[in-house]
């Protein structure tokens, strides 16, 4: 039944990309200036692609909903970017990075894509340094690395806790150079509302000017979606408030298959929800788990007393604390992967051991680390018999040096001093591995429509490793798409400019306008946020960290009912032909209400536990792994690619079988 062709080149794994680059068609420089490319989204994937394609000579138009390309949400990435440079001489190689990424993704990604990613990773660092990205350096002037996410080598390049910001500003600077040359036209405060297809090929978009409300037509020979992930389907996530699925979802409705929508990464170290007013969640770098110990009270009555403010965590003795990760996973302890740490925290809180007023938080405690570092420092500085206060002071200084900005951020938000009392953390939706299905060339199932970065599904399988999102975004934009899209565009050198006064554009524009009219015409009982929050609750409770058949079936029905109610009685104030932030939100939430249903359907279909997707029906029954996730390679070693067929629950499943020719499939064990 599958019609999917992944177009993976033949030949040995390590030679595929080079061979492919040598064999694909090129566009001559004189012809490139007759070819237009639209790029939606200006984060790492979109910004880098825009700059590179413009340098090559194509005419590029970029679109972003923010007031400047520099504000795309890649900017908020903290930890770092992986690259197989092996500067530390610790045995790293492209193969190891490839291996770690496939294993970390729980064997649900495509080998050839991941290997290409690992190969080009080293170019990213060279490129960014040449552009003036100020990475962290050692005293000798060379680049510094750190280890990240429990891998065995130090391959992560970083710029304090602001790596995403620095890389995005690098891509933005490359864009600026091309804007200055007139090769990029940057449409800011514009939102793409549909893809226009002509003779089956993507030939343009319909966009709304968010300032004037005007509906605009833009044509091009190819369209690239670099519009990010859809974590905001949960309402609360670490995504930006405006992050949305609209570009991808509109493309899905026009024929692009949506792959693995249920693969969501829930990050264990976020600042907990403080109340119903909460609008978004803040991540704190996972590096904190290198020194922090995670625990909850051993007795329920202590947890209750803490929640009610009658007891302080520092008053609990060691015996009254349950360092549950160290207890359950002695080999990895607090450094188990993100999905394992997240589920364990949820289990503790569901069982009544949560420690903040909402009952949804666990402690991340630095007291042991402060004492250990203090004692080490005393030894180094040859202080005999240091007092406890001296040890604390020296230890706290070490911690401040490592995590100062994170501690400060925590204190600003929570109003507690994490040097004196343990931090509180809780998991939050952070990244979506699923996205538009793409072949090896990053082309979707619609000809001429490409998807890059978090918007596609291709490289992270069922779970993404830390510091790999930035790598993928830039790899796609700087080094992969500029080659593969050329192969497609080489057939378009005689096409000439795509006209926008055609029936295809008429029809798409009319559909967009009808939809806006319908949104504005709801009978008006409830705000957009009311529906978004309701959807978020369904998603979090029934499609969140652990999933089961009954909940997922309920979620599908509940979301469909909520969507119907939304269309009947959402209230959008203001008018459509002016700046209207509620209308913007309404359009995005309407698409989340469809995606959510497909998400639940995908999770229901995948009756196995893999990576970030945990099905309660699929766990180890006994043995040392009892109760842990059980992957089912026999029945589920495929990518689920869904074809739109009207209502999301009617979507048709296409399977892309995954072939592992270079890696042996193993069970992840962290015991």
């Amino acid at each position, binding site marked *: 039944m599958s019609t999917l062709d992944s177009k993976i080149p033949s030949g040995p794994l390590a030679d595929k990309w080079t061979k492919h680059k040598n064999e694909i068609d090129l566009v001559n420089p004189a012809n490139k200036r007759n070819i237009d490319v639209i790029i939606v989204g200006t984060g790492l994937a979109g910004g880098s692609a825009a*700059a*590179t394609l413009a*340098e090559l000579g194509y005419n590029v138009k970029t679109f972003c909903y923010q*007031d*400047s390309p*520099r*504000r795309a*949400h890649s*900017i*908020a990435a903290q930890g770092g970017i992986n690259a197989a*440079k092996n500067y530390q001489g610790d045995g790293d190689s492209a193969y190891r990075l490839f291996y770690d990424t496939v294993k970390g993704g729980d064997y649900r990604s495509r080998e050839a894509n991941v290997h290409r990613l690992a190969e080009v990773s080293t170019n990213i660092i*060279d*490129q960014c*340094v*040449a*552009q*003036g990205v*100020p990475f*962290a*350096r050692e*005293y000798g*002037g*060379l*680049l510094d690395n750190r280890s990240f996410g429990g891998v065995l080598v130090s391959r992560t390049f970083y*710029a304090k806790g*602001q790596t995403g910001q*620095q890389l995005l500003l690098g891509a933005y*600077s*490359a864009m*600026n*150079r091309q804007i*200055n040359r007139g090769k990029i036209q940057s449409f*800011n405060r514009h939102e793409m509302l549909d893809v226009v297809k002509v003779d089956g090929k993507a030939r343009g978009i319909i966009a709304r000017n968010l*300032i004037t409300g005007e509906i605009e037509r833009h044509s091009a020979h190819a369209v690239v979606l670099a519009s990010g992930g859809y974590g905001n389907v949960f309402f609360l996530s*670490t995504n*930006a*408030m*405006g992050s949305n699925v609209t570009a991808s979802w509109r493309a899905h409705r026009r024929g692009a298959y949506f792959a693995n929508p249920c693969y969501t990464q829930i990050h264990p170290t976020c600042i907990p929800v*403080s*109340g119903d*007013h*909460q*609008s*978004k969640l*803040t*991540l704190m770098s996972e590096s904190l788990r290198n020194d922090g110990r995670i625990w909850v009270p051993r007795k329920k009555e202590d947890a209750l007393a803490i929640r009610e403010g009658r007891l302080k965590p520092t008053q609990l003795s060691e015996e009254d604390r349950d360092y549950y990760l160290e207890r359950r996973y002695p080999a990895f302890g607090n450094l188990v992967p993100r999905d394992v740490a997240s589920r364990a925290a949820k289990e503790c809180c569901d069982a009544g051991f949560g420690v903040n007023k909402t009952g949804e938080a666990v402690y991340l405690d630095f007291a042991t680390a402060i004492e250990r570092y203090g004692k080490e420092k005393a030894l180094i500085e040859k202080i005999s018999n240091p007092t406890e206060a001296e040890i604390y002071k020296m230890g706290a200084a070490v911690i401040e040096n490592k995590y100062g900005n994170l501690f400060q*951020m925590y204190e*600003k*938000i929570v*109003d507690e001093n994490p040097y004196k009392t343990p931090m509180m953390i809780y998991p939050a939706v952070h990244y979506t591995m699923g996205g538009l299905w793409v072949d090896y060339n990053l082309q979707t199932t619609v000809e001429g429509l490409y998807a890059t970065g978090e918007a596609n599904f291709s490289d992270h399988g069922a779970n993404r490793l830390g510091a790999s999102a930035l790598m993928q975004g830039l790899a796609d934009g*700087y*080094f992969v798409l500029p080659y593969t899209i050329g192969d497609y565009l080489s057939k378009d050198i005689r096409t000439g400019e795509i006209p926008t006064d055609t029936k295809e554009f008429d029809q798409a524009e009319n559909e967009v306008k009808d939809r806006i009219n319908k949104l504005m015409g709801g009978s008006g009982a409830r*705000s957009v*946020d009311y529906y978004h929050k309701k959807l978020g609750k369904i998603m979090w409770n029934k499609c969140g960290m652990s999933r089961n058949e009954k909940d997922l079936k309920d979620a599908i029905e509940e979301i469909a009912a909520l969507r119907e109610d939304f269309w009947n009685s959402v*209230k959008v*104030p*203001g008018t459509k032909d*002016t*700046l209207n*932030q509620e209308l913007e939100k309404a359009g995005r939430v309407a698409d989340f209400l469809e995606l959510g249903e497909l998400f639940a359907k995908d999770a229901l279909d995948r009756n196995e536990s893999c990576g970030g997707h945990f099905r309660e029906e699929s766990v180890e029954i006994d043995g040392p792994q009892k109760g842990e996730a059980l992957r089912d390679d026999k029945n589920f070693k495929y990518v689920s690619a869904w074809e739109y067929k009207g209502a999301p629950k009617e979507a048709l499943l296409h399977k892309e079988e995954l072939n592992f020719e270079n890696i042996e499939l193993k069970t992840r064990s962290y015991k």
Partner: protein
Amino acid sequence: MKLTLKIWRQENNKAKGEIKTYPIDGIEGDMSFLEMLDVLNEQLINQGDNPVVFDHDCREGICGSCSLQINGEPHGPDRLVTTCQLHMRKFSDGDTIVIEPFRAKAFPVVKDLMIDRSAFDRIQHAGGYISVNTSGNTIDANAIPVNKEDADNSFAAATCIGCGACVAACKNASAMLFTSAKVSQYALLPQGQVEATQRVLSMVEQMDKEGFGNCTNTGACEVECPKGISLENIARMNREYLSASLKG
């Protein structure tokens, strides 16, 4: 807590704006300032009124979208935070809070509290980059060693989020802190040397064209900057500019 909000309302960049008063109740200290505005907007929508328009996106202090002049200060009374990270516990029950857009000729109001900061983008288009193609065929990253102190200072300058608080804080609405941060980032790195002369001249020329005021060294920009961008950058840009002018 109960608060009285006095908020600038302006339909579009041609309309005349005015301050309107909104009482609000049930605000908790754990709410961020923007979450407090969310509560107000929900209330306005339910009453059939138009919600207050303001820019915001990441809500974690890094995208630079949020702005707001709160009781006369860019990003409000707390230091080293953006409005999205300002929490209501910094205010007390019964307070009156005046909320206006950042004020500057070069930042026209779009609607209510939203302003147009595209002037900042145009300053960057003029020279905020190193002219190197993104082909990946550059030299190995470690073939360009950079003194750690220079790298750290370059990074510190590069952490500017482009929010415009420096302009809003300045009595002359000068964009020197913003422009100098970008000039400094490259001036401190060997990769940035080749184009240093042209860069500073072009960026300063564009800054002047946009209608930003002159710098009179009051230092208000540094005090109000949510990222703590240092005044030293302005001194560095002045040196760069002088030597570039002499080179012609």
